[in-house]
């Protein structure tokens, strides 16, 4: 009842105003997109830690992401590249599970290469077998095709790729409308009501994450780190759905500590090729808020090792432009002055 009264009052007051006031109000409405809003109070930086060493390739994250964010399905396509028919991140695919089949990897396999410090990996369950092998000098035979993973150099890497929420995000730096912002959780977010689909962000992103939806609303889309769920104190849909905790969500600093501990543990167990991507390597001059534990070189996962920052090109490119323009201007002046 009170609400109704309120509405009536406001309607009444609106009509009672003079035309000047009404037009001023209208002008205010029109200028709304230009007004700078009060930002919400800052929160600790939030991000993802994707530990690919325990990813089982179930694609629950892909499905959960599609469902929560109401993203349309893409046209079914048989890629012929392992179990990966999604093939990449896109405007309507914000999580993408990669399947990397490493068959016949040669002698650099983890079981045959020593741990980095020269120590034998710490595998308490196998102590008895190792002692036996040392005493009689032979490795116990296993029937073909049944080799345990650590005796077998062939492996299947799986990784759930996602927006990296870079600390210095090239898409954010490139956006000419201010549609791409950093939220109070220090995530990178595209405001759909501001974006006009110029597509410059898609060229700036060195990971090929952000994309324009040319079959849909023709605007730029990417992972929002479930901004709506974060606002309500929930974790992102993909992290919630992940059955092995390969995708972990939390405060960036806490997650980074956890990632360092995890990679140390893996190294101690002899997985010497485990490495972190986006934690201490200062990618894009600040690291990534959504980082990864990888079991091979980043390039195997289609991740650039150390991508250049596009915005740092502006200064040298402008310099050479000014040099060329000054040179030609000077020559033009000389040519036109000479009689």
């Amino acid at each position, binding site marked *: 009842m009170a609400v109704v009264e309120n509405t009536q009052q406001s309607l009444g007051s609106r009509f009672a105003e003079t035309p000047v006031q009404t037009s001023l109000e209208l002008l205010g409405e029109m200028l709304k997109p230009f007004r700078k809003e009060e930002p919400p109070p800052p929160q600790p930086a939030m991000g993802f830690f994707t530990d690919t060493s325990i990813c089982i390739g179930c694609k629950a994250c892909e499905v959960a992401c599609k469902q929560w964010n109401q993203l349309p399905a893409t046209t079914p396509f048989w890629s012929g590249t392992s179990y990966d028919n999604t093939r990449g991140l896109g405007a309507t695919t914000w999580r993408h599970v990669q399947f990397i089949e490493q068959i016949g990897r040669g002698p650099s396999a983890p079981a045959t290469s020593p741990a980095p410090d020269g120590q034998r990996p710490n595998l308490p369950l196998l102590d008895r077998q190792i002692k036996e092998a040392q005493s009689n000098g032979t490795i116990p035979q296993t029937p073909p095709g049944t080799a345990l993973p650590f005796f077998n150099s062939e492996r299947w890497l799986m990784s759930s790729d996602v927006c990296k929420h870079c600390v210095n995000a090239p898409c954010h730096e*490139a956006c000419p409308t201010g549609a791409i912002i950093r939220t109070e959780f220090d995530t990178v977010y595209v405001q759909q009501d501001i974006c006009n689909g110029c597509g*410059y962000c898609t060229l700036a992103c060195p990971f*090929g994450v952000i994309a324009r939806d040319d079959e849909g609303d023709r605007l730029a889309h990417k992972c929002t780190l479930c901004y709506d769920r974060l606002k309500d104190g929930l974790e992102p849909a993909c992290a919630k759905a992940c059955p092995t905790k390969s995708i972990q969500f939390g405060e960036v600093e806490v997650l980074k500590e956890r990632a360092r501990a995890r990679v140390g543990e893996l190294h101690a167990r002899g997985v010497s090729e485990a490495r972190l991507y986006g934690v201490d390597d200062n990618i894009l001059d600040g690291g990534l808020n959504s980082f990864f534990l990888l079991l091979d070189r980043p390039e195997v996962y289609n991740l650039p*090792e150390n991508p250049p920052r596009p915005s740092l090109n502006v200064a040298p490119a402008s310099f050479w*432009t000014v040099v060329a323009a000054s040179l*030609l*201007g000077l*020559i033009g002046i000389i040519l*036109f002055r000479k009689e």
Partner: protein
Amino acid sequence: MQMPHIAGKRAGEWLSPLFTAISTAPSTQDTFEQLARLTTGYTPNPEQEQQEPGYYDYPVLKKPFWDWEIIWYFFMGGLAAGCYIIATIAALFGSEQDRVVRRTGYYLSLLALLPCPALLIKDLGRPERFLNMLRIYKFRSPMSVGVWGLLSFSLFSGLTAAIQAARDGLLGRWWGARLLASLPQKLLAIPGGFASAFLGGYTGVLLTATSIPLWSRSKLLGGIFITSAVSTSSALISLVLRLVGAPAKTLHKLERLEWVAMLVEMVGLLAFLRQSGRAARPLVGTGPDEHGHTFWRFMFGGGLVLPWLLQTSALLGRKNKKNTTGGLLISLLVLVGGYFLRYCIIKAGHSSSKDAHTTLWNARK
């Protein structure tokens, strides 16, 4: 082989036997490939490139959707900028005779500028939201700075051309025209000249500030674009002046400016190719999805080296003799070359974005 889309499908079909004949001749294929290796300093090694790690050769980057709108915008924007620069130089430093350059330059600048905003707005995902570009000013984003630069240049170009029209009596004799004619055109042309230099060069900076290896590895694209803007504009102005008739001395000045600009452009392009190395393959190479055939034939060869040589011989052999046909030919070649510079850079950028191995190579420490 790459078909240049000059005059639509029908012309392409009509010309295709010719193109095929030229491109399948083994000597041209070899020559272009040799040129590509020589200029980039990179010899492709497909076997080794396939050994490099990657993920099923899926692209690392997203493919640009910039196409003919942006190619024409870069070309027309370059002409608008270059014509304004040349007209301003002629107005501020030229002789009485050079007034014809100023007049033609300012009119041509505005004419070339007119389609630009429409081309840009059409290219947006949501054209009705183009005003959102003016919400903010962002120094780090070449797109944002470019929008403001284009806007301010439009103001100067429109005003300068309007003053010129009023002084030429094209606007009649009413008080508004008299007021326009009395405005200080030369004073306005100074900031306008800087704005035009910005417009001619920022497009290259815009491409450099991306992750596409071809566009971003060398930082010279802005310099090349502004140089091409000056060479194509002097070609356009001298083309028009030759057709309407102009003093030989004035034409001579334009020809020499064109000659210098082409020389600078050649040096710039060669430096660009050398600095880009492997990343420049999509532009100069002759493999599948590489645009070397179009680049060498219509841009570097036919659109730059050939007119430059013709211009050199014309300038050396000139004895106050007017060679209208030769001059027209040079101008046309330069203009076609300027168009194909933008065409090849954009199209080869598409190929560059699809090449995962080169993208990963470009991002190595």
